[in-house]
């Protein structure tokens, strides 16, 4: 019982330490430095900004409403 309690408390402490570490790591790595670039990181030349990428089966991609 004591061992289980210790494991749970240690896990909780580890979780808290990991969260703080992850935040400071991300800041040092510059993850929050260029938000515009971050927001655009899911687009590329094949699926660029400005192109709709999902349609109903009955709708042709060129026919925007």
């Amino acid at each position: 019982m004591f061992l289980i309690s210790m494991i749970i408390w240690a896990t909780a402490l580890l979780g808290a330490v990991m969260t703080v570490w992850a935040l400071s790591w991300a800041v040092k790595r510059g993850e929050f430095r260029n938000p515009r670039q971050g927001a655009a990181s899911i687009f590329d030349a094949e699926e660029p900004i400005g192109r709709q990428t999902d349609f109903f089966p009955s709708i042709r991609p060129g026919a925007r409403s």
Partner: protein
Amino acid sequence: MTHVPEGPAESRLEQISRIVIDASSRVPVLLWFTSSVIWLLFGSLAAMISSLKLHHPDFLGGIEWLTFGRIRPVHLDIVFFGWSCMAAIGALLWLQARLCHVRLPWPVLLSGLAMVWNVGVVVGSVAVLAGHGSSIEYLEFPAYCAPFFAIPALGVLAANVKMYLTKSSEHTYVSQWYLLAATVWLPILYVTAMLCTYFGLVQGVSQAITNWWFGHNALGLWVTPIAVATAYYLIPKVTGRPVHSYHLSLLGFWTLAIFYNWAGTHHLTGGPLPAWTITVGVVGSMMMFIPVITVAINHHMTMRGVFSMLKTSPTLRFTVFGSFMYTVASFQGSLEALRSHQEITHFTQYTIGHAHLGLYGFFSMIMFGAMYYIFPRITNNEWSSARLIKVHFWGSALGILSYGIGLCWAGWWQGTMMNNPSIPFLQIVEYIKPYLILRSISGAGMTIAHLAFALSVWRILSRHHFVMSGPTLFTTQRPPWREFVNEQNQREEIAQ
């Protein structure tokens, strides 16, 4: 004849890379997704039986396995462990592979873990139906079911971390924060809750606190982050517009990570707990306004000016509906934590309405949207029928709206009447009965929607209507992806 995508070299390489990544996740993601859809049907069946019993108590009354005290927990557990968790894991694996620009690691292992998870849901459901369930909400499955969920959760965590550590993308997109955090939080939540409740570590009031610490966080720190991550990817990706404010999106993630964990005890307002534990829950719930408002602003502003796309994209229709319901259900949930609010709504149908607005209106709708986006890309096939998709959407949307609004309205007045000692209890029961019938009708609408969705899934998997160059697969024809995989392998060998 093989149709090779044409265009600039960079564009072609990106397309090949994306197709190869999708191919790597095909078998495991299909297993997690199709299992979740099957469980959705079983969950709907259990829901209908439970709901009908509320206004027709004699319905199937002679079968002890289907008494309300068993079928209702089975509904909850199948919908949570079977539908929600399995859909969430499928979306998580596909999304993280795409965002990291790496192939999904250990596909055989992850497929095996999906089967282990399925065995857990089967064993747990049969045990609860047979009367061996506990009375601890969300943890009704017996303790011997725990390894069936804990081991796959650790496997998914390992795969997620491996993808992140080997990622070839430079930036960590906001969705990746949510996905990584969710996979870290789930094993901690589940293993801790199981150890505490089933091994006698905490008892009595403390057990109730542990129960709702787990119950609330299983929604808020596990399925919610995955759904929000999915929306943060799909809404910009489908509309072709970057997130309105990337700063806000990051603020939303970190405030969710800090505040959500504290909110669970608001489920026990009015209970025999130390007052400060409930106050902590109330404060945590109020602080949740911050991440919710950031998500609401971001999703609404990203959609501003392109709401007409909801007519043309099934993914967007479901995802935007789910995002809107996230705002509604979260605002409602935060206000519900207040003691003055709880005095009226606690122990009424209001809570049931709220829970469904959250888990169905928000989470499930976003998962449906994700599946409409992902299935064509990993099966290399097109959805067979726009009509079936529309039946699914309207059945689900109208069903959950009538369900949520009806029960919240009924629950509010039910609570108001219960606080008035001059009103006989039977009169209150008679008052809510029409709303319970409305609940069954709404549930029937959602069940029809699920059948339409399951039929669509069956058709896309069985290649009933085989089209490789449909609209959801963009404008280019995709050749058999084995050729792309070989080409990508050769390129990676040369690079090494």
